[in-house]
């Protein structure tokens, strides 16, 4: 045993010294990078933006990180990032904290909308679920724990138990779901599985016939099914689509936000106006979310907007390359890097 220890100690020390040296001499980022961190729901969307934007503006490289809306907002409050993405609004105390820490007021920009979809396994026969039922499945003290309580004959799920899957507690989607479905003060049931990413959650659902989960509608794959959602049991439910998110018939539609510290300026301002412009908004639509333009036109002429939205919904682009396994792998790798060293999970478009 002592022999073993002798060999490992110097090796360990040398390794640590190397690590430290690497940390000290790593290149500092220059001004042409825009650091964007936050919502996992918006991660794929942000990466699409970054790639397209970098093509037309080669001198600017947006750096995208996920981790959850909480992470983006925390980064903004600490003044460490340029843009925070969030699938929930900032809380008053977070705005206060950002003001105290940085002296600037966070500015809120809505870049699109999402319908928070309820995911089940593709072979689950269930079609419609109500908000009350969801609250009983997810909420502390909730009575629904088995599929037969929902009158669902979920044959592939031999055990019959509902596996309710949630997001990690810093996720904006987690906070939004608690607010809208559980009702603010109510907590999630103990034993609720939490996943650290939208893609990870969708992958788990696709492999687990007993599972139910919630996530942004942009993460749909062929292996999962999105349920219709109704406000009350017995009422007809609405599917999570661009159309229903717009006309308000889908009960879990929510805005997607960007936050900056104070009025954006320079490269950040240019990026944001590009995102809000036709190219950025086209990507919102391509990634399966509802662009701002659709919201505005539906305010004026609801039928036309809805029709156009419905047509676009059907296009296969919305479901493009969200292969379940691949996403799972990517997420896994992301999560690993997140744990080890924040910087390494930055994803930048190729030069």
């Amino acid at each position: 045993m002592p022999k073993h220890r002798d060999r490992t100690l110097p090796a360990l020390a040398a390794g640590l010294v190397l690590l430290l040296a690497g940390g000290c001499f790593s290149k500092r980022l220059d001004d042409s990078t825009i650091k964007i961190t936050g919502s996992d729901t918006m991660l794929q969307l942000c990466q699409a933006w970054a790639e397209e934007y970098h093509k037309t503006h080669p001198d600017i490289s947006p750096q995208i990180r996920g981790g959850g809306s909480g992470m983006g907002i925390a980064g903004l409050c600490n003044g460490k990032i340029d843009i925070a993405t969030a699938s929930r609004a900032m809380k008053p105390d977070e705005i206060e904290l950002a003001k105290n820490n940085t002296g600037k007021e966070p500015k809120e920009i809505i870049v699109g909308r999402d319908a928070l979809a309820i995911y089940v396994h593709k072979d689950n026969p269930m079609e419609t679920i109500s908000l009350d039922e969801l609250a009983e499945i997810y909420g502390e003290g909730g009575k629904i724990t088995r599929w037969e309580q929902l009158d669902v004959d979920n044959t592939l799920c031999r055990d019959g138990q509902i596996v309710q899957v949630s997001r990690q507690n810093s996720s904006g989607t987690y906070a939004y779901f608690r607010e809208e479905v559980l009702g603010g003060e109510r907590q999630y049931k103990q034993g609720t599985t939490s996943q650290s990413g939208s893609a990870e959650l969708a992958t788990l659902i696709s492999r687990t016939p007993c599972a139910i989960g919630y996530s942004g509608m942009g993460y749909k794959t062929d292996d999962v099914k999105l349920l219709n959602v109704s406000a009350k049991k017995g009422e007809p439910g609405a599917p999570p689509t661009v159309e229903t998110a717009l006309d308000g018939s889908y009960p879990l539609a929510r805005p997607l936000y960007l936050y900056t510290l104070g009025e954006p300026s320079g490269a950040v301002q240019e990026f944001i106006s590009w995102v809000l412009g036709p190219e950025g908004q086209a990507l919102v639509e391509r990634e399966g979310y509802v662009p701002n333009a659709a919201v505005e036109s539906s305010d004026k002429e609801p039928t036309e907007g809805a029709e156009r939205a419905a047509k676009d919904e059907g296009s296969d682009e919305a479901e493009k390359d969200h292969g379940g396994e691949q996403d799972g792998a990517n997420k896994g790798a992301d999560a690993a890097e997140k744990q080890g060293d924040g910087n390494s999970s930055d994803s930048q478009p190729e030069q």
Partner: protein
Amino acid sequence: MATVSTLPDGPRARRGTSSRFRRVPELLIEALIRLCGWSAILFVFGIFFFVFREGAPFLFGGLNLREFFTSSKWNPTANTPHYGILGLLTGTLAVTALAMAIAVPLGLGAAVFVSEFCSPKLKEGLKIAIEMLAAIPSIVWGFIAYMTLNPMIIAVTGAPVGLNILNGGIILALMSVPVIVSVGEDALKAVPDSYREAALALGASRWELVYRVLFPAAKNGLLAAVLLGVGRAIGETMAVLMATGHANQIPTSLLDRVQTLTATIAAELGETVQGGDHYRVLFVIGMLLFVIAFVVNLTADLVVRGVRGKQNA
């Protein structure tokens, strides 16, 4: 150092003038090695200091310790947050215990086989394979848990989801086996061959040789192997985060999903506001992990000393 002064007189006299210069690099190397040795202690204290500094303000000002240890309500982002880690603690212990129940017999058995029973050629092959196993990154293990073991467990046990204690235990066992095997094999190899020869000469069978001679002789090393395995299992983060289902509850069966202390830190630390209660409580959990590691090592030390004391007496 001592080696220089104890050199025989002959060569020293011949190289009398140059030895003075030769001492300079020697001294440098000596200092460097000394620094390396001390740095380990420095790092340990440094890490503990920084973890303590981040966690202490909340530990001594606001954290309800009774709730911390006796409640399983972990709702750090709620409007009225609860910081109860009973579910996380029992989750960690359950997964680690299962992993050890699988890995210790498997690892020690493999160590005995590699060291005592297999042919030299097979031994080389096995050692390479085991080292490869040790080199697989934990995220890959997590991925195997998620993609392969999950549906297998559903199919075999009929559990509603395959991410649970069983999955986490199997993955952690597979991760700690290589550690146990390589350290255990070193320990067995260190037993002098004269012991083996003596035992065989006295008519012991090979099993008796292993059980009655090698195990007692290599006890310290084998214990160290097992404890390194425990350390690997208890400290592992990414793989358990993916394998256990990450669901906070006090487990009652092997098929229950659990959340571990390490996975909680990994999943939540990045998203907390620096200096907030949630941020600090995660560092308090880090301190708790430190204490657990310390207790495990101390117990090991005491056990080893006890064993040694008896042998000397």
